[in-house]
């Protein structure tokens, strides 16, 4: 008979019980029944004596530990669970004991339990608490002794772990976001410093050139070259500023975009011809493949020419002498597809989309032989998207050239033939009154107009100008809208009232939005001229029949 270990008892009590135990054992032996333990009436009530080892320390550990412990029959019914498991599933004991383990597992089915053949199995799963909430858990399953063998589960609640992991993931995301924001900020700072550098260069050259001109006798050959240089730099500066302005306007959605039916074939041809000489001067061959007929699209002609021009410029910049650029255009179903291909330095795969990002530019190398602000491609994408199209870049890799694909929706509307040439300058001489408060601007305008054979009178403010106009009515009045005191709009109204329809009124203004043009028109002006406007522009405004307002006051030719 195996030794009987009882629960803690005083020595005397044990002595007293020994005979009783012996009697009970005897009775059981006689009954030949398999039991684990017997109940003996002791002085303090019934006492249970287990036949096999009670393992009190282990029992305490199991009851006290934080993990859950469950004993299951081979079929998965819960025979026993510790307090840890009770608390994990937050169920009263009577709802656990006797119930199937499957009731408490959201993600596991009985077959998993059957898998617990030889040895312990470990797996992650999701428990279902009594109130239906889910508890992520890690389970170790092992077989206890006996046949058929019961299954013992040790269950670890992973809720806190998962929460911690989620927190860490969130921190990581925030870190990444912060890093990205910092990178963007750095990029912006780089852009601004590059911008400053780019703008200072042409300005510096121009100022130098002027100084040299002042020193040099104008009959020498040098002044001619210097004037050329100044002109080129001024135009370059103008283009930089145009780009910047465009970018700002397109970015804010403020661009005046009046889509009209256009012929894309014509637009592409124009852009190509505008850039042909520059490309060929760089020693790059240019081939063009465009269809004979028309491809109608809805859009703004100037903007589209600008976008295509930027793509050509981009191709030219990144292709070495001896290289090739090809432009193709075709209509495929309802889409117009334009392709600009070059044999230049190509694009790394991961950069294909990033090259359209603002402030991004290939290599901030000290040798900035190409200049520019790196916004050309951004503008292209924004303008193309404004037209309902897409632009994508592709390349076989660095050194293998690049290809830019533009897709635009084809419309069914008829196409107008837009007159491409501007009205030729008149050679007649007019009497022009110039009302401008800025001395330099006024002097330059007067000088320019006089060189074109015009007679110019000046007034520094609105009041004086009106008086002069009434005293001696001119053929045209040029008014700077931003006058101090009596503003340009009021001047316009009074002049129109006083002079009637014979005199041409031209408003010179830095504000080009639709709203501004309306105000100008309402004030009585015939023409809205966007600054900066050179003498030729002013003269054209004075003489041309068309009173349509010019939308783009570009500096570049």
């Amino acid at each position, binding site marked *: 008979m195996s030794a009987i270990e009882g629960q803690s008892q005083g020595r005397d009590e044990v002595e007293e019980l020994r005979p009783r135990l012996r009697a009970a054992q005897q009775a059981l032996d006689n009954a030949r029944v398999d039991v684990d333990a017997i109940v003996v009436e002791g002085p303090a009530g019934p006492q249970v004596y287990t036949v096999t080892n009670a393992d009190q320390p282990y029992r305490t550990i199991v009851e006290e530990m934080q993990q859950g412990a469950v004993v299951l029959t081979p079929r998965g019914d819960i025979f026993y669970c510790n307090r840890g498991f009770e608390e994990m599933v937050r169920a009263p004991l009577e709802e656990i004991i006797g119930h199937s383990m499957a009731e408490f597992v959201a993600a596991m089915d009985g077959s998993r339990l059957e898998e617990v053949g030889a040895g312990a199995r470990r797996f992650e799963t999701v428990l279902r608490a009594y109130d239906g909430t889910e508890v992520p858990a890690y389970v170790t399953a092992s077989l206890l002794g006996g046949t058929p063998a*019961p299954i013992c589960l040790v269950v670890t609640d992973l809720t806190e772990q998962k929460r911690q992991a989620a927190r860490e993931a969130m921190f990581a995301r925030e870190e990444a976001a912060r890093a990205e924001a910092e990178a963007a900020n750095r990029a912006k700072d780089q852009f601004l410093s590059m911008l400053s550098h780019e703008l200072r260069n042409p300005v510096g050259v121009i100022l130098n050139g002027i100084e040299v001109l002042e020193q040099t006798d104008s009959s020498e050959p040098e002044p001619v070259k210097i004037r050329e240089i100044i002109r080129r730099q001024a135009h370059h500066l103008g283009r930089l500023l145009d780009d910047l302005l465009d970018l700002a306007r397109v970015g804010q959605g403020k661009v005046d975009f009046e889509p009209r039916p256009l012929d894309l074939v014509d637009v592409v041809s124009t852009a190509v011809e505008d850039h042909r000489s520059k490309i060929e001067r760089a020693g790059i061959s240019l081939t063009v493949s465009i269809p004979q007929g028309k491809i109608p699209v809805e859009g703004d002609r100037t903007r589209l020419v600008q976008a295509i021009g930027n793509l050509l410029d981009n191709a030219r910049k990144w292709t070495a002498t001896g290289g090739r650029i090809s432009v193709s255009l075709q209509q495929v179903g309802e889409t117009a597809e334009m392709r600009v291909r070059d044999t230049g330095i190509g694009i790394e795969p991961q950069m294909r989309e990033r090259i359209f990002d603002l402030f991004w530019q290939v290599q901030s190398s000290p040798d900035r032989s190409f200049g520019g602000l790196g916004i050309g491609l951004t503008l292209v994408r924004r303008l193309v998207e404004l037209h309902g199209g897409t632009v994508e870049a592709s390349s076989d890799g660095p050194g293998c050239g690049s290809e830019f694909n533009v897709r635009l929706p084809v419309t069914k509307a008829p196409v107008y033939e837009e007159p491409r040439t501007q009205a030729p300058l008149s050679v007649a001489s007019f009497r022009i009154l110039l009302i401008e408060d800025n001395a330099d601007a006024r002097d330059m305008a007067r000088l320019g107009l006089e060189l074109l054979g015009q007679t110019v009178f000046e007034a520094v403010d609105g009041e004086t100008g009106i008086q002069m106009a009434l005293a001696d009515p001119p053929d045209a009045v040029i008014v700077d809208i931003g006058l101090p005191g009596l503003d340009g709009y009021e001047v316009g109204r009074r002049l129109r009232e006083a002079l009637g329809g014979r005199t041409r009124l031209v408003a010179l203004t830095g504000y080009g939005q639709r709203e501004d043009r309306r105000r100008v028109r309402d004030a009585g002006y015939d023409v809205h001229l966007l600054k900066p406007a050179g003498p030729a522009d002013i003269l054209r405004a004075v003489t041309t029949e068309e009173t349509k307002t010019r939308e783009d006051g570009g500096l570049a030719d």
Partner: protein
Amino acid sequence: MTRAARKGPTQWNLRLYVAGQTPKGITAFANLKKLCEEHLGGNYSIEVIDLLKKPQLASGDQILAIPTLVRRLPSPMKKIIGDLSNTERVLVGLDLVRKR
């Protein structure tokens, strides 16, 4: 003896007394569950009473040996000692035997 089903749905109330997670206790429980499902449909409830936790509960049903199964309902009360592996003996003991 008629089966419980023929009498209509009688609710069986069964109590299994065990002493901790001893092998025979677990076996008794497993056997009991199987038996109930096969013979009682859903009309039963099983209470498992761990006398190691609450030895004083032994007095109520006068438990001497563990494991012991007590049928409290339907009356009369029946007691079966052991791990219930001998199904025939258990069925007899619980009056669940088919009429031969």
